[in-house]
């Protein structure tokens, strides 16, 4: 058993209106970042958890996302990194 640090990204599903992302995108355009095409604002979680292997830690994190951390109707999640804590 080792301790892993798991970084999780959760963002509003593409195609759904994300008014926060839209407001940020508009502000970036105002600042002159004319190349900005889309912004979605989500959450970044860092979970520390004990697991046998990096793969097991990844599976654990996916299960957390499906059961609590992400809303399956409106959000997509991604396990960004799994590293030894």
């Amino acid at each position, binding site marked *: 058993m080792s301790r892993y640090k798991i970084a999780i990204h959760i963002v509003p599903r593409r195609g*759904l*209106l994300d*008014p926060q992302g839209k407001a940020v995108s508009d502000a970036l355009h105002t600042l002159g970042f004319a190349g900005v095409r889309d912004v979605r604002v989500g959450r970044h979680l860092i979970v520390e958890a004990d697991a046998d292997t990096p793969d097991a830690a990844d599976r654990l994190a996916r299960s957390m996302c499906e059961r609590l*951390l992400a*809303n399956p*109707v409106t959000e997509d999640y991604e396990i960004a990194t799994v590293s030894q804590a």
Partner: protein
Amino acid sequence: MKFGIVTFPGSNGDYDAYQAVVEALGEEAVYLWHKDHDLQGADVVVLPGGFSYGDYLRAGAIARFSPIMREVVAHAERGAPVLAICNGFQIACEAGMLPGALLRNKELKFSSQFVRLRVEQSATPFTSGYQPGQLVRIPIAHGEGRYTADAATLDRLEGIGLVVFRYVDAEGGITDPANPNGSARNIAGIISERGNVLGMMPHPERAVDARLGSADGLPLFESILAGVGA
């Protein structure tokens, strides 16, 4: 008839619901603490408005795992009535008792105002006291009330008559300006397929007496009473 009103940490509509039941309807009500495992014999469960668990993670996401929710879900699975208002609607969606989700209002603002609703379905245990198509004035108070579901779910809800309330203008028209939060197809309230779980963002318990600005929410409570019986 006995109403059980759940109090989560952060609920703020529980007292209003209690007053609506006891003072306006003249029936019995009990508060159910979120850590309880017992509905105390309630015939009807109310999931009230508020900000349970500070809306941490997502509105309703944590409350759904409160001990009392196991009993509430079992109550609904027996076909018994659950009235889920505002944050309660968010919790019911998170718990899978109703389809879809409630997202941040389109304009990013908390909206506290009277809105006009059209009763789309009067053949439910919650709305039998209204005329089909009746327009009612009921207040909203939420920052995350934009009802969202995929197109297939929305089509199914509409196709089998599960949309109970819609935001409309004074003439009953389904327009964008009448939609206070950007909800899909102006949906303000939906009911479960079995017809026993009603979720709605507006607050009928805050419109049960003309002194509150409207008594248009009272028939909803009277409908429940007529359906379940005293």
